[in-house]
């Protein structure tokens, strides 16, 4: 059996590197917010020659946008899309997202704590999902800076989905620890090693199937869902990684610290 827990420093190093890179980018470059957050207009037309033209306007330039719109219309161009988001929508979106994140994270924490009869399990699982959300945010700050990925409505959806996926994966590992706890009376360090060995193939295989679907969407699904799929992909990878290498190590370390205190 592989002694997974022996390499905790390595997992900390990997997570640390990714998180620090992300946080650095968030502080230095921030995000490239889409019009869902900033307000404004994006219009796309297909003119007769088959060429498509994209226009972006700030919220103040709406009359200009309408002028171009009528102009293109009278020239027989096809309107591919026209999105006009008022400046009041963005703050609402952020507020709603924060509420949704808080509510679902707390419910999941309670559910895990209840099912595994320990707040330790609940909090470690939630910390792992927090890790994934931060990784996703950091990555999108980097993608935004280097490839122009926008943070929009769909990104928010992706983040919430990853929250659930990450916990999904963590629960499967926890479940093995719980099952072994009933049968063997080893300490949590050994039980965790056993559980990780038993679930590793399953975790990887499951991520592969999800990644296949997402890669197909990224490559062939069209521009609208491309970055959304990328966000889900980043989240899937991080979520798969965080269950054995973030949630379980936190759980084990917590348990060790607790025992040390009890001894003293």
């Amino acid at each position, binding site marked *: 059996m592989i002694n997974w827990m022996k390499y905790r420093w390595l997992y900390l190093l990997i997570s640390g590197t990714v998180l620090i890179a992300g946080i650095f980018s968030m502080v230095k470059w921030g995000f490239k917010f889409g019009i869902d957050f900033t307000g404004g207009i994006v219009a796309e037309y*297909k003119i007769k020659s088959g060429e498509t033209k994209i226009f972006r306007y700030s919220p103040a330039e709406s009359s200009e946008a309408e002028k171009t*719109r*009528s102009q293109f219309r009278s020239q027989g161009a*096809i*309107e*591919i*899309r*026209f*999105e*006009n*988001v*008022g400046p*009041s*929508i963005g703050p*609402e979106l952020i*507020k*709603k997202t924060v509420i*949704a994140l808080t*509510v*679902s994270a707390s*419910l*999941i924490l309670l*559910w*895990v704590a209840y099912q595994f009869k320990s707040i330790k399990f609940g909090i470690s699982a939630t910390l792992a999902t927090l890790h994934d959300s931060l990784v996703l945010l950091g990555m999108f700050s980097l993608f935004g800076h280097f490839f122009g990925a926008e943070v929009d*409505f*769909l990104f*928010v*959806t992706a983040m*919430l*989905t990853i929250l*659930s*996926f990450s*916990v*999904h994966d963590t*629960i*499967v590992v926890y*479940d*093995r620890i719980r*099952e072994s706890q009933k049968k063997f009376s080893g300490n949590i360090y050994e039980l965790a090693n056993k559980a990780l060995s*038993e*679930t590793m193939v*399953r975790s990887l*295989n*499951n991520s*592969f*199937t*999800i990644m*296949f*679907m*997402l890669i*197909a*969407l990224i*490559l*062939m*699904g*069209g521009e*609208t*869902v491309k970055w*959304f799929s990328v966000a*889900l992909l980043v989240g899937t990878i991080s979520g798969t990684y965080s269950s054995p290498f973030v949630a379980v190590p936190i759980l084990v370390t917590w348990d060790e610290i607790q025992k040390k205190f009890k001894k003293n």
Partner: protein
Amino acid sequence: MPTIFKKLVFILTIAIGALYISLPQSFTLFGKTFRRYDLGFSIGNFQVARKFDLKLGLDLAGGSHLVFDADVSKLSDDKKSSALMGVRDVIEKRVNLFGVSEPSVQTANFDGKNRIIVELPGIKDTKEAINLIGKTAQLTFYEETMLPAKEKDATPSTTLTPTDLTGADLQNAQVVFDSNNGKPSISLTFTKEGGNKFAKITERNIGKPLPIILDNTIISSPVVQETITGGSAQITGSFTIDEAKKTVIQLNAGALPVPITLVEERTVGATLGGESIQKSITAGTVGILMVSLFMFLSYGSLGLVADIGLIIFGLITLALYKLIPVTLTLPGIAGFMLSVGMAVDSNILIFERFKEEKAKRNITDALEVSFGRAWDSIRDANVATLVTAFILANPLDWSFLHTSGPVRGFAITLALGIAISLFTGLFVSRNLLRLFIRERKKI
């Protein structure tokens, strides 16, 4: 008949039923064209009619998503909600009169802001629709009254004062063409009460102008020739025919109780929608093929059983989209794709478990034990995902969460996918595997 066969017959029935509903309305196979009939029969007075068509959202079918802000700041708290209902009803009437098929008008409330969400599928001229919906359309008849002259020699000035005759007194408005000059004009028919008011107003204003004001603009100011008792009037302004038509729609639908302003518009052309569908189908097919192949390569014949389960999963999902019906949007398709990836997870969990248990006991027991043991983690894990999907879909319309838009579409398909995957992953694959092992043992 052993129970396992009964269960297999049950699975087969569901699969065939789902396949039938999933089929497109007509399709060509081996050079022959088939037609899928919709459900429609009646038993006595009880009628059953169901169309098995996929409902597409605006981003796939093309159309406009409009959000208006209703300004109720001037109203007292108890009048706000009825005013909003009024706004919704008036907009609904206007949109229906405009001739949009299957529009949706909803109200939403967040942080003290009152929103009206209007969805117009397949609309071509959004700008015109926005003008039509957004106008308050408050029609009032005014009369001129003399102001008492302040100084003796000053010319007497007049001021406009509103009469009690408004758009609310209208029974009907329609576009007519003026018999003298052929110009489009608007003919108004008043209610009985309105007719009486009109008669009184015309009586006391003979020889004087009677300005008709629509949303702070004088659209016509005819001079009254005689008392009009017939209860009808004609506005001969300088309308274009389009303006006349729009005004008539607004007058017939009634005025908005409070002013509204557009805060969000998302219009997707039908071309982009069609392209998105095409691309999603390609991506979905490729993805599912890759997942199937992967399952086969990893688990051999067990993987094939999972693949059959996956096909049944796909059929049931599509059938339920049509039956419920779920309005399919682009994020919704992504939710479906993600649930496909997750659907095989229960199979993977069980198969991995099966590998372990096979070493310890005979193959039939190992199968049953694997299903039993894997169930705990499948249940706990899926509940967590369902919790998130529930928050995102917000079925109870809690105003502090998202009440519409792409997030909801995504969450609904994801939740549905998880529920169905529990059925196919546990019930369907389990019984197929039982049969599979039974047959293998015979050989």
